[in-house]
C-alpha cells in the first residue's frame, strides 16, 4: 500500500466517524464535517448553479439536509464523501432546473475539471474504482467522453449538451448512448 493509499484510507475513516457522530446530533462533529467537506461541496454547487450567491444558498440547504439526514447514512453503502457530494449535486441540479434557464455557455471562472487535481485529491483518486472508471472513460471517443463528463460536472441535459456543442439533439444522444454502452462493457469487462 502506498502512502497515498494509506492517507486516503485514514481520511475516509475519519470522515466516516465524523459523519456518524453528526448523525447523533453532535454539533462539534457537524462543525468539523463542514470544515472537512465544505470546499468540495461548494465546488459542486458553484459549478452547477453558476453563480456564487445561488451556490451559497444551495450549500446552506445542503448542510441543513445533512444535519437532518446524517443518521440515515450507512457506512457500508456509500463512501461518506460520495453520499455528501450526491446530495449537493442533486440539490444544485434541482435549483438550476427550477430556474427554467438553459445553461449552455461555460462559466467564466469555473475551474477545469479535466485536471485530476493534486495532493489529497490525487490520493483519493488512487482508489481502485476511480482508476477503473477513469481508464474506461479514457477509452471512449473524445466527443463521447466529453459529453458524459460534461453532463456529470455541469449537471445538464441532452438538450443543453446539444446546444452547448452545437450539434443536433439526435447526434448528441447517439454519441452519449454509444459512449455509455462502451463504458458499461469496459466496466463489466
Amino acid at each position, binding site marked *: 500500500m502506498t502512502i497515498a493509499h494509506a492517507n486516503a484510507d485514514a481520511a475516509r475513516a475519519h470522515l466516516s466517524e465524523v459523519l456518524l457522530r453528526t448523525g447523533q446530533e453532535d*454539533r462539534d462533529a*457537524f*462543525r468539523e464535517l*463542514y*470544515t472537512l467537506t*465544505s*470546499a*468540495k*461541496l*461548494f*465546488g*459542486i454547487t*458553484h459549478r452547477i448553479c453558476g453563480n*456564487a450567491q*445561488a451556490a451559497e*444558498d*444551495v*450549500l*446552506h*440547504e445542503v*448542510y*441543513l439536509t445533512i444535519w*437532518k439526514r446524517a*443518521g*440515515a*447514512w*450507512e457506512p*457500508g453503502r*456509500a*463512501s461518506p*464523501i*460520495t453520499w455528501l*457530494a*450526491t446530495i449537493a*449535486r442533486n440539490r444544485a*441540479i*434541482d*435549483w438550476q*432546473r*427550477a430556474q427554467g434557464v438553459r445553461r449552455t455557455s461555460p462559466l467564466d471562472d469555473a*475551474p477545469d*475539471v479535466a485536471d485530476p*487535481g493534486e495532493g489529497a*485529491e490525487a490520493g*483519493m*483518486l488512487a*482508489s481502485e*474504482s*476511480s482508476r477503473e*472508471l*477513469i481508464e474506461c472513460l479514457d477509452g471512449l471517443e473524445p466527443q463521447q467522453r466529453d459529453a458524459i*463528463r460534461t453532463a*456529470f460536472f455541469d*449537471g445538464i*441535459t*441532452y438538450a443543453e449538451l446539444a446546444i452547448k456543442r452545437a450539434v443536433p439533439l439526435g447526434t448528441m444522444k447517439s454519441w*452519449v448512448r454509444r459512449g*455509455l*454502452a462502451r*463504458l458499461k462493457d469496459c466496466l463489466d469487462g
Partner: protein
Amino acid sequence: MVDPITDTGVPEDVAAAELALGLLEGEERGAALRRVLAEPGFAAQVEWWRSRLAVLFDLWPERAAPPHLAARIEASLDGTPAAAPTSRFAWPVLAAVTSAIAASLLLFVMVRPEPTVPVSQPIPVARPTSVLVAMLGDAKSPVAAVYDPANGALRVAAGPGVPDARVAQLWVIGGDGVPHSLGLLSGRPTALAPKGVDRGRIAPGATLAISVEPLGGSPTGLPTGPVVATGVVARV
C-alpha cells in the same frame, strides 16, 4: 413489460445510465422515473450507474466556501423544525421540484391499469363509516392494508421480505401525485397511525406503495429504493 413510451430501442442499461446522469427532462424523464417505480431490475441498474459515476466526485475541484456561511448555517440549525429552509428561493425551488415529481407520478398513476372494479358495482352511496382497503403487490403474495377513517388506524399485513439492513416503507400517493410516507413496515402485521394530513390522502383512488429503504426510512423524504408493491385504495 412493454411501455410504448420507454420502448425506444435504447438498451436498458443505457437508459438507466441516462437517468442516473441526469440527461433526461420532461416526458422522457417522467417515463424513466415510472420505470424505476415499476421495474426493480431497472431501479437496480440506475443505482449501479449512480455508484459507478460517483467516483467522478473525486475529480471535482474544491472551492473555498464564503467565510460567513458556517455561522449562518449553524444559526439556522436552531429553531428550524424539519424542512423549514431559510434561503429566499427555497420555496419556489421546492414547489417546482415537487410539481415536477407530481407531474411524473401523476402520469404514473394515470397510466396504471385500472384496478379491478366489479362490473356490477352498486350505485355509489356515501358510506362514511366503511373502511378502505388496498391490496399491494401481485395476486400471489399481496400485502393487505386496511384503513378505518373513523379512528385513523391503518393496519398493514406483514410487509414484504427485505434484505438485511433495509426496511420496507409505506407511501400514499394521493391527488397531489407526490409520495408521502405513512411509516415503516416490519415482517409482522403493523398498525400505523398516520398524521392528520396524511389521513385525508388515504382516499378511494389513491395509490399505496411499498419501497425498500435504508434503515430508518428514506433519507430524502421520497422513495429512494426499489418500489416492490403498489395498490389502489378502494372502499369496501
